[in-house]
């Protein structure tokens, strides 16, 4: 019986296009961060405002591998809904749009920063104050390709 989930995980991993070095037949949530295709640094999130269950997570994502990694989403334990989003300026207005695929180029990096790409957390299950931590997983399809451990701070 215990083999079934492992076999499923292996099947999912095998069907996704990810760098060869990252294809480990283990359950995604249990994979150590060091084994992830993307390196994460400088992760932080803003404190939530009372009565407003939302925030954004920012970080620098680096891809040391030889193949691009295509992010398709995020899941954050503290939020009922998490998306990769982009703020952008158009005709003098700041707009936001969901990002269905965000490419972290081979040997390249992408910055999630205020006013640009970010992980948008909606429907927070608890308020976030300075000093708290937020853990998110960045997904390429069904596979976790980075774990973001963000410190909550004002700036």
């Amino acid at each position, binding site marked *: 019986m215990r083999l079934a989930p492992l076999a499923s995980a292996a099947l999912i991993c095998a069907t996704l296009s990810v760098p060869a070095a990252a294809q480990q037949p283990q359950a995604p949530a249990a994979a150590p961060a060091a084994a992830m295709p993307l390196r994460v640094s400088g992760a932080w999130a*803003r404190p939530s*405002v*009372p*009565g*407003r269950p*939302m*925030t*954004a997570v920012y970080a620098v994502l680096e891809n040391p591998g030889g193949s691009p990694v295509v992010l398709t989403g995020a899941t954050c334990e503290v939020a009922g*809904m998490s998306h990769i*989003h982009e*703020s952008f*300026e*158009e*005709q*003098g*207005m*700041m*707009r*936001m*749009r*969901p990002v269905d695929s965000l490419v972290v180029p081979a040997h390249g990096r992408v910055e999630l*920063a*205020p*006013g640009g790409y*970010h992980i*948008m*957390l*909606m*429907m927070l299950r608890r308020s976030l104050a300075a000093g708290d931590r937020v853990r998110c997983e960045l997904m390429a399809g069904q596979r976790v390709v980075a774990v973001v451990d963000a410190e909550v701070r*004002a*700036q």
Partner: protein
Amino acid sequence: MQRGLILGGVALALAACAPSDRVRTAEGGARPAPTFRIALAGGGSFDMVQQRGRVVVLFFGYTHCPDVCPTTLSDFAGVRARLGKDAERVRFVFISVDPARDTPQDAMRYARAFDSTFVGLSTDSASLAPIMRGFGVGAYREPGGDARTYTVAHTASVFIVDPEGRQREPVRFGPARAEELRRAIEGALE
């Protein structure tokens, strides 16, 4: 439903109102800033005319905004801390462009979450429209999301009104905005 229609009305009303950074008169002088009065949550009102002698720093946003608005108000808080004693002569004001969701109490609570001296304002869409038009601010509801989670596109420039009530050059959103804001506010204080 009615609330959605109200916001839609604001969007329509502003559709013909392109954001403008023009603050100079034809003669090249700084033009008088638009004046307005909005009732405060908890009583009283915020009246631009009564702010003469102070610098007013205005940002139009919405309280369900996860990125640009908290970034801007955090910048405000950082700038205020660096102004030292001069901060007493500066009023930082947040005005909601999302009156369908933001009550005056919501706007005030939101602003004060960043600094207890900040002023948060929200008024009905009919009163809001001429204020936004006066500053050249646009806003509309982005497609997608439900009544709780929709996002709002909006002008993200910060408007600075000097102690004589004249509008200074707006400070556009950008990575170095906190420093640009500090310089602009100090310039307006001189």
